[in-house]
């Protein structure tokens, strides 16, 4: 099982932002995506997760294997942490949330309403959601926002454990996580609009 | 010139007047917007051409 992109081009708001993205991610590997603000990391990850169509190129191995965590956490403020996780586990046909709670030291916060958590605590709960999906490919957009150093360590451990178990991870981040991972710098891949095919405005050029 | 419209003159003239007014407004707005859009396009096409050379 592997995720492979070949010559992918993506657009945001009808404007091409990245082109020529190709890589293969095998079981147990992680890839860190870097690039300055506005270079298209979020757009790339959303495309891989299937939330928006690609302009051109192909993505293989992403069907029903991706768990996506974007800037928003997907947690309900009025449900407790445990209720939120149990719900997402059920959506993915699973039950057990204890491992996820343990990995992010959430046990003491388990019965708190998610809306009353601090920014970093909420983020931890959002990351724990990935573990209850049971999906092999984690696609993470700036996962460590608001996390303190201890929590960043917890997160790195969780990713390492996931990789050891044969999972894969794709992370967009601006800070160094101390993971043993390849780095894809998207700066050189920025789209040249005039060479792109399939852009929604291409027909008008 | 204008035919005898009898007691309904107001209604008939009003209906014609209002309708033609609306049609004229639609036409003018359409043409104005179209002119603006086409002018902007011409400007940017010239700029693109200049960049192509430079």
């Amino acid at each position, binding site marked *: 099982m592997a995720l492979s992109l070949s010559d992918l081009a993506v657009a945001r708001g009808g404007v*091409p932002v990245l082109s020529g993205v190709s890589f293969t991610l095998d079981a147990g590997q992680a890839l860190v995506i870097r690039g300055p603000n506005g270079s298209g990391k979020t757009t790339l990850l959303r495309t891989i997760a299937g939330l928006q169509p690609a302009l051109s190129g192909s993505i293989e191995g992403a069907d029903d294997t991706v768990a996506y965590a974007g800037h928003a956490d997907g947690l309900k403020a009025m449900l407790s942490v445990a209720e939120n996780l149990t719900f997402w586990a059920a959506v993915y046909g699973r039950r057990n949330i204890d491992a996820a709670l343990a990995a992010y030291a959430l046990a003491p916060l388990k019965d708190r309403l998610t809306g009353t958590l601090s920014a970093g605590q909420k983020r931890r709960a959002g990351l724990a959601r990935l573990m209850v999906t049971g999906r092999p490919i984690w696609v993470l957009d700036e996962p460590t926002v608001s996390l303190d150093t201890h929590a960043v360590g917890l997160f790195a451990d969780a990713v390492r454990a996931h990789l050891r178990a044969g999972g894969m991870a794709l992370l967009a981040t601006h800070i160094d996580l101390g993971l043993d991972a390849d780095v894809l710098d998207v700066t050189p891949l920025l789209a040249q*609009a005039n060479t792109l095919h399939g852009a929604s405005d291409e027909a008008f050029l | 010139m204008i035919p005898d419209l009898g007691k309904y003159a107001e209604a008939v003239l009003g*209906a014609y007047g209002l309708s033609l007014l*609306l049609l004229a407004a639609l036409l003018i707005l*359409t043409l104005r917007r179209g002119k603006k*859009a086409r002018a902007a396009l011409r400007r940017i096409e010239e700029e693109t051409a200049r960049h192509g050379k430079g």
Partner: protein
Amino acid sequence: MSLWEYANPVKFLALSARVQPFAWAAAAIGIFVGLAWGFFATPDDFRQGSTVKIIYIHVPAAWIAINAWIMMLVASLVWLVRRHHVSALAAKAAAPVGLVMTVIGLLTGAIWGQPMWGTWWAWDPRLTSFLILFLFYLGYIALWEAVEDPDTAADLTSVLCLVGSVFALLSRYAVLFWSQGLHQGASLSLDKEENISNVFWLPLVVSIGGFTLLFLALVLYRTGTEIALRRTRALGVRLDRHT
């Protein structure tokens, strides 16, 4: 050469440039002749007096209002199935024209109703379904305006147009079920006597033709405007990248 070739903006613009002069000219002639004939050269109706002259605007406007929606429905389907940009933009371009025609139909009808039925408005089935059509136009245009990304806007409005058409049809039956009409139906029109019929009928047909051509010309021109806007956008992006 297939019809779909004209879905390419350049081909479309070329064709449209060739057709437009004729369309505008024919529209102007048709409307002028139809209205002038109707206004100056037709007799009054024996029951309705001179108000019958309103028919030369009222019926063409109502006809365009309904058919513009049908055209938008077809264009939306083409966009959803074949993703030809021109057809989505043509639907967008037609909507305001349809809206204005609806308003003209409503206004002339209301003005006509005051002397004929003694009221500006009644909840007659035909009038009511026309009002509902007006609402559909409003919603459709508002949705186009509200969505940022042009392709998403095209997708969403197309879905709305599709679902809306089904419900518009349903409403038509619902309204017929709900209220008895005042409005003349096609069968019970004013032409009780054969000879008068033709007198009213011919200028009306000319006027309908003129309005249809005007609609065609407007939609072609407005689609051109939309294409220009999209092209400006695309070129702007390209310039941004270069600098």
